[in-house]
């Protein structure tokens, strides 16, 4: 498929996150999927069985992450933050039996309590057509920094 198909998909995903349509967002993932945010500065090869990450969700925990974010008792996101997800430099980097590997750069802004935090980095996706729809098999978000000293936390989906 053309790159624009994947690009379009990622723009839609970003809109779901900006608009806090998290149930819709979760539906983009298959039940075998993972969502991971390795430690800032980690290499693309980082492995959540060996390295300390910030987030290493299977589908079960990801479902609860979404539930949590929509729950008033998730104090870090209540009142909820305002976010803006920017996607660019979308490239297809390969494909294998798991799916098509797509990478892009991101800048995500999160504003709460009069503080705006910026997260920049790149996402590595594995995407696959399932029953005629593009779905996420794996999303890994790499933060381009050596730490989270600036932002303090990742309570949102990057």
């Amino acid at each position, binding site marked *: 498929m053309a790159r624009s198909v994947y690009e379009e998909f990622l723009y839609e995903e970003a809109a779901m996150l900006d608009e806090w349509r998290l149930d819709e967002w979760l539906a983009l993932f298959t039940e075998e999927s993972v969502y991971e945010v390795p*430690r*800032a500065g980690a290499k693309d090869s980082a492995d959540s069985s060996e390295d*300390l*990450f910030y987030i290493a969700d299977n589908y079960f925990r990801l479902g609860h992450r979404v539930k*949590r974010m929509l729950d008033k008792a998730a104090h870090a996101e209540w009142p909820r933050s305002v976010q803006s997800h920017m996607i660019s430099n979308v490239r297809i980097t390969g494909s294998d039996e798991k799916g098509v590997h797509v990478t892009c750069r991101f800048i995500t802004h999160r504003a709460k309590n009069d503080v705006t935090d910026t997260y920049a980095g790149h996402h590595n996706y594995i995407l696959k057509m399932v029953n005629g729809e593009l779905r996420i098999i794996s999303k890994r978000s790499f933060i381009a920094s050596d730490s989270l*000293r600036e932002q303090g936390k990742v309570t949102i989906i990057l």
Partner: protein
Amino acid sequence: MPDTLASQDKTQGTSLIVDDREGGLFRVNRQAFLDDEILEQERDKIFNRCWLFLGHASELPNPNDFVTRNVGGKELIFNRDRKGEYHAFLNTCPHRGAMVERQEFGNALGFKCFYHGWAFNNNGNYATRHQPGVYPEDFNGDGCANLVPVKLQQYRDFFFVNYDNGANSLESYLADSRMILDLIDEHGPNGMEVVGGAQKYSIRSNWKLLMENSYDGYHALDTHETYFKYLTDAIGGPAEMPKVTNVMNLGNGHASIEGDAPWGRPVAKWIPAWGEKAKTEIEEIKREVVSRVGEERAGRICQLGRNTGIFPNLVINDIMAITIRTFYPVEPGLMDVTAWALGVKGESRDFRKRRLDNFLEFLGPGGFATPDDVEALESAYRGYAAYKLAPWNDISRGMSRADGEPFKADDEEQMRCFWREWDRRMGAE
């Protein structure tokens, strides 16, 4: 014996604490979190005089290994020399101050300053060959061109530094908190190791609030409601709060809370979510622990968890995973946190994954719990802006228990241990 008891009576303490044992009231003035001047005094009387956690032996497995890190506001090199001896040096060149090592970790026979090229062996000795005639014959006769060593001692695999050359030994400083480090070290037959790097983040609040929070048994249900909802689903049954809880005053401002809890522990408490195969493996792990340390101690290691605060700023959570955490004030209202995961040396990949999952789902910047703690600490800090009109924090919970009745983890005695030591040190001349 804790080395503070003798001097406890002599000092007046600060006027920022009210410790009314008869009235059952303990209060801390919010100014203690706000003042630049108090932070200056904390640097001087606490961070420059207490033993501070530097690193774990597993971070330097081989001769010539090094890590660099900031401890108590000072850049340090923690390394091993050619013979395997451990050292800690100030990471500042004796020439004009540049950092002689700027990588986070590595293996090096020596350090070479990038500014003018001064070189040092990894035992800290000046090793530059300069042309004759530029420096006096006996240059460095007094060691002025060597890296400056920092007082370094270890207890088990935990290394600490102290910037006060007159400080008492680490052993006497740690007092009864050594028992906690012993228990940690006994999780595996070959000791423990730091796993896959550190989480480094920040909190826009005062550092002492994180110490309180780290062993606050009173906030869990309110602050972490969403985590317990998740846990209920993950363990396949209601997540009950600990039934047995203890508070241990470990001396010198150190304290710990201990109790059972609903989550699984890689060493060694099974939950259904881990499956039958893991159950067999856990039983095996438990048998090994029992055979090594005995039934009673194994019960403590496998069934009970502990949140421990070692004064002033070392937190060891031995709960669903084992974390080491330190934090330092940058400003009164800003701290830098560093957290490491400890795992059993040689544990299987599956158990390592379970351990890291346990860590991540509760703790750290992306966990289901820590960010809510951070929100609490940051919102408290915003509240303190009104300290003149609302001056006091209350830390009295459980204080008026009858004499001899043990404190529970949701009493606030562990925090009072911290504050009494803080007050003693801050009041001392």
